[in-house]
C-alpha cells in the first residue's frame, strides 16, 4: 500500500505544486487549505506523513499538530518565517522536521521518505 501524505497550505500554488511533486514521487497525496479542514481530513482517514505550513488562517500549524492524534502522524512543518518561537514550539510539539521555504525538493523528498520509513 502506498504511503499517504497530506499537504496543508493556504497558498494554492504551493499546495498544488507540492501535490504534483509528491504524486510524481509515488506517494498517495491529499490536500487541505487550512487547519480545520486538515483535522477533518485526518479524522476521516489515516495519513503516514503530513506536510503543513505553520502560518495559516485559523489555527496555525503548531496548534493543528498538537490536536492531531493520538497517535500523531509524522508532521513536517514548513515556514517562510524564521521566527524562533515558532520553530521552538514546532520542535516541542514533536514535529518530525521543520523546513524553510523555499526548500530544495530533493531535501524535502528525503525528509518525507525518512518520515514514511519511521511511520511504517
Amino acid at each position: 500500500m502506498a504511503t499517504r501524505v497530506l499537504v496543508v497550505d493556504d497558498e494554492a500554488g504551493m499546495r498544488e505544486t507540492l501535490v504534483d511533486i509528491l504524486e510524481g514521487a509515488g506517494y498517495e497525496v491529499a490536500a487541505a487549505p487550512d487547519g480545520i479542514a486538515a483535522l477533518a481530513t485526518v479524522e476521516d482517514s489515516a495519513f503516514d506523513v503530513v506536510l503543513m505550513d505553520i502560518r495559516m488562517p485559523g489555527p496555525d500549524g503548531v496548534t493543528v499538530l498538537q490536536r492531531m492524534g493520538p497517535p500523531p502522524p509524522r508532521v513536517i512543518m514548513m515556514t517562510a518565517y524564521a521566527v524562533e518561537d515558532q520553530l521552538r514550539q514546532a520542535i516541542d510539539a514533536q514535529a518530525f522536521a521543520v523546513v524553510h521555504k523555499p526548500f530544495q525538493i530533493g531535501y524535502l523528498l528525503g525528509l518525507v521518505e525518512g518520515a514514511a520509513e519511521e511511520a511504517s
Partner: protein
Amino acid sequence: MEPTIDERAHDVRRGALRGLSLVVLVVLLLAAGGAAWGTRRVVHDQEHRLLSERTSEVGLILQTAISAVQAQLANAGTASRLANGSQQAFIDATKVDVATTPNLLTEALLAPAPDNRDGFVILAAVGPSNKVGDVFTGERADAIRKAISSPGKMTSTRVLTDRGKKTLGLAAGPPTAPPGQVMYRETSVSPAGQSRTAAAQPFSELNVVLYASKTAEPSQALLSSTKIKIPLQGDVVNQPFNLGATAWLLSVTAQHPLVGSLASRTPWFVLVGGLLLGLLMAYVLEVVLRRRDYALALVDERTAALRTSLGALESAQEQLVRQERLAAVGQLASAVGHELRNPLGVISNSLYLIRGATSESPDDRLKRHVATAEREVSAATLIISDLLDFARAREPIVASVDVSALLDEALEVAPPPHGITVARENGAALPGVAADRDQLRQVLLNLITNGYDAMNDGGELNIATAASNGRVAITVRDHGSGMTEDTRSHLFEPFFTTKPRGVGLGLAVTQRIVGAHGGTISVDSKPGEGAAFTVSLPVFTEAPAAQ
C-alpha cells in the same frame, strides 16, 4: 593623565607668589621705604633747625662769657693807663681776676719789644707763668699784633701746647689797652673736663665743642660739654663763632633728639607700618588670586567634563539614529523578505516540476533556461536569507553537521554558472562540526556565490576542508581579480558591496553567524591573485562548548 581638580588646587596653593602680588608687594615696600625716608628727612630737618637754634643760644651765652673776660681786661687796661703802666696798679686792678679765674696763667700788659721787631715785652703781669720783661714771640705775638691792628676787638691765639699743658691766649688792643699797648690773658685749657659754662642749663641736652680754629681740629678744642669724642659725629651743627677778630668754631650735637624720641622714631614707625601693610596687601591679593585661579580651574574642569559628556551624548545619539535606521531597514526587509519566500517557494516547486517534465525533451536551451531560473531563485533566496538574518540575529540551534554533505547541498542549490568549475579537496574523514545547519548552509552559500561572482571570466573555484586541533576549516578560494587593502578593510561591514547587484549583507551576516558559532573567518587576498576565505568551526561534542 589629566590632574584632578584637587591636585590642581593643591598646586595652586603650593605655587610661588603670583606676579601681581609680587608687584604690589614690591610697590608697597618701595612706598613704605619712600615714606619712611621722607618722614626721616622732615624729622631730620626739624631736628637740625632746633639744633641750630640751640647752637645760636649757646653762642650767645659763650659771647656773654667772652664779653665778661673782655670787660675784665678792659678794667685792667683802664687801671694800667691811669697808673701809667705801673706794675703795682696792674696787680691791684687784676686782683679780682686772679681770684675768680683759677686757671689763669698770665694776665699782662704788653708793648712792642724795642729790641725785637716781631716780639712784645711784658710791661706788667700777674699770674704764675710770666713776669715783667718777658718777651712774647711766635703765635702769641701774632695774636697780640692782630689785636693792635683791630681796635676794639679781641683776638686769640690758637690752642698752644706748652710743656704738655694746653693754653689759650686772648689779646685786646686799644681802646681796651693804653695806646700802643695790649692786654693779654693766657689760661690753661682742659677741653675734656666739664667746664662751668658747659654745665649750664642750655647745654644740658647738647654736646658742645668750641674750637679755637675755623675748622673742627681736635687739638684746638677749647671746651667741651662732656667727655665726648672730638670731633663730634652725627648730625653736627658747625656755627662760626667770632671772638672779636678771630674766627672760632662752635660745634654742637644733640645728646637726645630735640624733637622728642617719639618724633625721631616716626620714620621707623612709618617704615614698619608700611612693610606690614605691604605684606598684608600682598597676602590678601594672593589669597584672592589663588581663589580665582582655583575657580577658573574648576570652571575649566567642569567645562571639559561637560564637553566630554556632550561628545558622548552626541555619539550615542548618532548611534541611536543609525541603529534606528538599521532597525527600520531591517523591519521592512524582514516583512518583504518573508512575504517573498512563499512565492519563491512556489516558483522553486514549479521549476522542479518543469525540469521533470522537460528532462526528456531534446531542447537543451529549455533545460538551460530552467537551470538559469533555478539559479536565480537560489540567489534571490540567499539575498532574502541574508536580509532576514541581518535584521534579526537568530541564536544558532547547534547540532552535529556534516560539512561535506552540506557543501554538496549548497553546490546543488547554487551550481557553478557557465565557465566555472568547482574543485573539491576534502580532508580525510571530517568530524561533524557544532553548527546550526541552516545558518552554516547560508555561510557556505555566501562564500561559494561570492567566489562565482569574483570570476566573471570563468575559472576554477577551490573548496578545501581540513580538520585539526578540534576544529574544521573550510576554505573557498577563487581566482578572480582579488581585492585591495581598502576593500578588505571594509569587507565585513553591512551594506558594503563591490558587486553590480546585491545589498552587501552576505559577508556581514556570514561573519556574525561564524562568530555566534565560536568560529573565525579570515581572508587572504591580493589584487590580481584572487581571494581565499577560510571559516574555522569547532568540532561537535556532546556538551558543546559554544552553547
